[in-house]
């Protein structure tokens, strides 16, 4: 089926998310929709899928204008969508999820045999190997994604939208997904592939449309170079080099030995981790989302209690000597107090209280300490003074420091969180996904602040799923897979080696496998965009 979007416009209040977007997807084509975070790709697809109503423009299927007032209409017209956050019901079985909304029934009850048959048929056709009776919540994300694809295909989707489908996959799972996409395209489906990862676009797309700030900035072919694509995406020439001074690693500041963490069901989340971080050194923890990085950061800060192992801090004493402090099993409050700063991964959920003012958020973890309070009473003057200083120092853009943090942009919110954590004397800084979802300007700002800490002699632990950030900041990279460190490697390790390690292959094996693998300079260069 041929899909055509003409001048599709979508506004949220004064904010124009999609500005007169034109797009044509031919049958059997994999069309990549490339753009930065927040460029408006997902909004466009939600319009196409009937979740949002367009403010202008039209959608044509095989040349016929259509109007969708809900996803039901879009599905009936042959459009299927695999959402980035899976639209699956965890407590339902695969079969129940697949038929939901278009249930086959016999005698008033659901014909589960037919539902199973549908799942089996599609699963066999594409070699998915999905059990129709498995509860979705027990399935790994890669399999859940296939359930989503089955769901779309079972509704006879001829146009399939994949929204950032690789974000949660290992490189190997990503390759498998690309195979599936090619199969589907060969079978005649039109595929819209939303992503911001250049490598994937070049590998699988037939046609590329680049979107920036809600507008189409150009169409191109996968033969375009990564630098060309990157420049189109951000609108200026991008310096892929990141400069940082030579590491001046000092004494060990953080020492972790045999760290183990089990969840309540006895599942292993952290598996015998041992490492140390020196003063003035950045250790970056890389890995595909969900391999224990989040849990590692939370365990270090005391949000989770390790089942075994120890976390020891070596900090400077007031007399100039060294204090060795065992942080294992201590409370978050105690760990923060002993000179550990923490920037949580999910800023909105864990890092800030959205309804509090900037001033209040800036003292969130310091309210009980001087000068902000005494004998349980808050010192409002000191709190206000601190706020105006931090706001100026970190260039937080807002009307006033009594504005609720919720009214600020993501970048400014993250600046507030960073300002709070970095305003103390830190021995160790733990930052999880410090730049997730931020614009380039904010990313640069945050990175410079982190490197400034490094120069000041703070031991920094960065957890990031963005390889570019890892390679840009790290003095050493620890690659994590299923709760353990596959290896700790230097920052100039080739990307495909890191990729293999992120799928659980040991460093030596990864090196061995990559022997003969022609090192493509562009692939190492792609840096920021992976």
């Amino acid at each position, binding site marked *: 089926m041929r899909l055509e979007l003409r001048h599709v416009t979508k506004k949220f209040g004064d904010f124009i998310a999609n500005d007169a977007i034109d797009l044509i997807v031919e049958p059997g084509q994999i069309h990549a929709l490339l753009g930065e975070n927040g460029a408006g790709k*997902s909004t466009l697809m939600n319009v196409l899928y009937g979740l949002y109503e367009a403010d202008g423009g039209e959608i044509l299927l095989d040349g016929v204008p259509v109007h969708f007032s809900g996803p039901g209409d879009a599905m009936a017209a042959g459009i299927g969508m695999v959402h980035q956050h899976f639209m699956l019901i965890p407590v339902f079985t695969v079969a129940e999820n697949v038929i939901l909304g278009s249930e086959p029934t016999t005698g008033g009850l659901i014909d589960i045999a037919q539902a199973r048959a549908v799942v089996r048929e599609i699963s066999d056709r594409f070699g998915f190997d999905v059990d129709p009776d498995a509860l979705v919540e027990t399935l790994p994300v890669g399999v859940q994604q296939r359930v989503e694809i089955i769901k779309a295909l079972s509704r006879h989707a001829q146009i399939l939208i994949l929204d950032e489908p690789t974000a949660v996959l290992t490189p190997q799972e990503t390759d498998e997904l690309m195979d599936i996409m090619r199969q589907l395209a060969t079978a005649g489906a039109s595929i819209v592939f939303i992503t911001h990862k250049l490598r994937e676009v070049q590998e699988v797309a037939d046609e590329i449309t680049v979107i920036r700030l809600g507008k189409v900035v150009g169409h191109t072919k996968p033969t375009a170079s990564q630098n060309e694509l990157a420049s189109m995406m951000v609108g200026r020439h991008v310096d892929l080099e990141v400069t940082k001074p030579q590491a001046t690693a000092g004494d060990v500041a953080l020492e972790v030995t045999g760290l183990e963490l089990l969840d309540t069901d006895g599942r292993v989340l952290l598996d015998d981790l041992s490492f140390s971080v020196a003063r003035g050194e950045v250790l970056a923890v890389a890995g595909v989302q969900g391999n224990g990085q989040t849990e590692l950061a939370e365990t270090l800060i005391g949000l989770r209690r390790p089942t075994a192992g120890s976390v020891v801090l070596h900090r400077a004493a007031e007399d100039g000597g060294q204090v060795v402090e065992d942080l294992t099993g201590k409370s978050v409050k105690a760990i923060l107090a002993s000179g550990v700063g923490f920037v949580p991964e999910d800023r909105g959920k864990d890092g800030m209280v959205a309804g509090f003012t900037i001033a209040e958020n800036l003292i*969130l973890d310091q309210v009980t300490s001087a000068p902000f309070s005494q004998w349980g009473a808050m010192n409002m003057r000191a709190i206000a003074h601190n706020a105006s200083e931090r706001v100026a120092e970190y260039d937080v853009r807002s009307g006033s420091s009594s504005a609720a943090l919720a009214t600020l942009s993501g970048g400014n919110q993250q600046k507030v969180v960073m300002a709070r954590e970095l305003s103390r004397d830190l021995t160790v800084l733990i930052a999880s996904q410090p730049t997730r*979802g931020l614009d380039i300007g904010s990313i640069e700002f945050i990175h410079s602040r982190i490197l400034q800490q490094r120069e000041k002699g703070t031991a920094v632990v960065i957890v990031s799923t963005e390889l570019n950030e890892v390679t840009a900041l790290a003095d050493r990279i620890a690659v994590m897979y299923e709760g353990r460190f596959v290896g700790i490697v230097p920052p100039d390790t080739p990307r495909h080696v890191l990729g293999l390690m992120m799928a659980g292959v040991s460093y030596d094996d990864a090196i061995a496998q990559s022997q003969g693998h022609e090192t493509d300079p562009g692939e190492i260069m792609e840096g920021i965009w992976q």
Partner: protein
Amino acid sequence: MSDTTQEQSTPRPTWRVMLRSAATSSYLTSFLAIVVALLIGAILIGAADAQVQQTAAYLFAQPSDFFGAVGHAVGGAYSSLFQGAVVNVSTANNAADVIAPITKTIAYSVPLIFAGLALGIGFRAGMFNIGAQGQIILGAVLCGYVGFSWHLPIVIHVIVCLIGAFVGGALWGFIPGILKAKTGANEVIVTIMLNSIAVFLLGWLLTLQAFRKPTSNAPISPTMDPSAQFPHFFGTPIDLGFVLAILAAVGVWWLMERSTLGFRIRAVGENPDAARTAGMNVSMTYVWVMILSGGLAGLAATSQLLSSASQQLNANIASTFGFDAITVALLGRSKPVGTVLAGLLFGGLRAGGYLMQSVTGTPIDIILVVQSVIVLLIAAPPLVRALFRLPDPERRRRATSRAHARSTREEVTA
């Protein structure tokens, strides 16, 4: 209140802006909600009135009769409601009589203010404590017991009774608090259950020798000692209880806005994950909130036992204060000033309701209808705005925040 942290001065508002903000303010919504509730009450009063029903039969023949009857029924009921709650202008013989109703209103409002403040603290910590009823009962049990069985000197006895009331309520609040902290048990369910358990516990205690008035077969306790009575002011029904309620409101304001514990409570209420990440002990905060909240609710019992209201422990000692307090806290938006005002309003409705019942025969149950309609409407400002065709202050903000939420969502997909 964080206004003190404001750095920039806001530009002087124009009249138009001020009018607009008045039209969209929550005060206006609250006022209109009260108006609508009274209107609904009026309809019920009219509909149930015998005279109105008779005249309705020939409504079209002689509409004036009908509307006259409606006016008579509603006017009579509401004027006696007003006279019972605020000032008595019709039957008063002297100045004291004229203001007697307002003093009665104040007296009725005391338990509502205490319990409303209690629930407000819980709401701001994100805990839906609807167990004030049980907490008042337990407060009454302890307060009553030390009041009639310990014989202490004046002043000290009142203080001991206050402590007893606080401890009783705090204990009943501690249970859901600790269960939520340790096992994650939903405080709504636990407090509902504890309300009923408290009723049966009180019923059982009143069968015991220690709690039973020796000369009576009825399940009531001995009368409180005279030393365990609040002093009155200038011979009015207003006593120390009201002063304590106001002090409690000031104390709660300070606690929530100026103390580190209040900061913690608010942070936990707004975002428990962020509070935990900032090193706050969320579980213990829940426990403290419930202890404070329960204790304050327990103090509501003192207005029954230490004032002239009841002075004896009986099965109905908590009346429906605990449930009314939910509406008080909601109407007062969990803020101390609002709670005091809401407590006075509902206290007035109660005081006036009794007079209305005795004078016009309109059952006091209508007050429950009025109260619940007020709270429902206040909880749904869009409905009030739709009823009165007011502008929507949220629309602009919502549109931008949705755009923002959307862009964050897209960001997260990275």
